[in-house]
């Protein structure tokens, strides 16, 4: 229903690209969602094509009942963010889906942490203590407030984008938003 992003991009967000970019693309995603996995390389491509024109923000929208590993995965990314490696973990969580169905199991998350040069035991205790859970839940509820009803949901400069997110139409929508600035 709501077509506007009600929680503006702020300091708690994971942001890639310049703050003064003419276009901000916000994605509400879920690391276990196959459609988000399919969107991942598309976002990579439009990011490469737009360069400094684009600021990309990723927010968590894990559907726990349908995707029981989405929430721990989101916590792992937030934990990696503390070590300055949010995007590296984010990319890994989508890319390693290719490894098979258990790619978000706890031991795999710890493995990714080590691969990124982080101390996996830190992640283990963060997951156990659910240290990043509140932040993930806050992102989810923020999404609900903005009318997010599934994943992925995109907002371009604060307006929900309901069009096709194949590379060409998404790129066109982003370029149009940049031009109208």
């Amino acid at each position, binding site marked *: *229903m709501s077509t506007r992003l009600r929680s503006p991009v702020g300091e708690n967000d994971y942001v890639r690209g310049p703050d003064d970019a003419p276009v901000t693309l916000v994605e509400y995603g879920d690391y276990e969602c196959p459609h988000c996995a399919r969107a991942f390389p598309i976002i990579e491509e439009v990011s490469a094509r737009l360069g400094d024109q684009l600021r990309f923000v990723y927010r968590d929208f894990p559907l726990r009942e*349908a995707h029981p590993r989405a929430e721990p995965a989101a916590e792992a990314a937030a934990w990696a963010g503390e070590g300055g490696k949010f995007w590296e973990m984010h990319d890994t969580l989508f890319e390693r889906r290719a490894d098979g169905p258990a790619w978000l199991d706890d031991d795999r998350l710890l493995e990714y942490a080590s691969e990124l040069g982080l101390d996996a035991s830190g992640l283990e205790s963060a997951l156990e203590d659910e240290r990043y859970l509140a932040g993930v839940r806050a992102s989810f509820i923020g999404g609900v407030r903005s009318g997010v*009803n*599934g994943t992925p949901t995109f907002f371009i400069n604060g307006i929900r984008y309901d069009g096709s997110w194949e590379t060409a139409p998404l790129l066109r929508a982003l370029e149009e938003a940049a031009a109208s600035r």
Partner: protein
Amino acid sequence: MSVNSDPNGTSRSHSESGGGQAGGHTERLLQPGTVAPDFTLHSTPDQTVTLSEFRGQPVILAFYPADWSPVCGDQMALYNEILPEFRKLGAELLGISVDGSWCHAAFREARNLQFPLLSDFEPKGEVCRKFGAYRDEDGIAERALFVIDAKGTIAWSYCSPVGVNPGADGILEALEGLHEPAGGEQGQ
């Protein structure tokens, strides 16, 4: 897993609305200010739920076309996740479709749904019709939402195009609106 899982965005199109408004047939629904018609429906093969039993607390009625169809699953799965927020606002959520109670039981179990699904099964669609939320053209419920206040009056209603998951932001806003005017805290 989601309405916008189709990258072509067709499932988000509002072609159903016809009249050019963003929603579905919202104008056909019972409108805010109307007393909600009471009903008793099966929630399981041997249990029933009566709307008036919830007097004293707000109720969300979520009419939906069918168990198992992908968008419905998502809408109900989403509401399942948001249930703690609804309950924080004192509200109960009831899903309603024309599916039978055995079908609902299987659907609830498969999706681990933590709220009742009511069967408007016999006479088919009678409660849906009372709320203006029946689709004569295909014999199923509209994707229609109602927020009913603690006194049993409809505070908000919304009809989404049948293929579009309406999300929950409208429900949350309506529930919060109930707490604003005088009247104090609802029971619960």
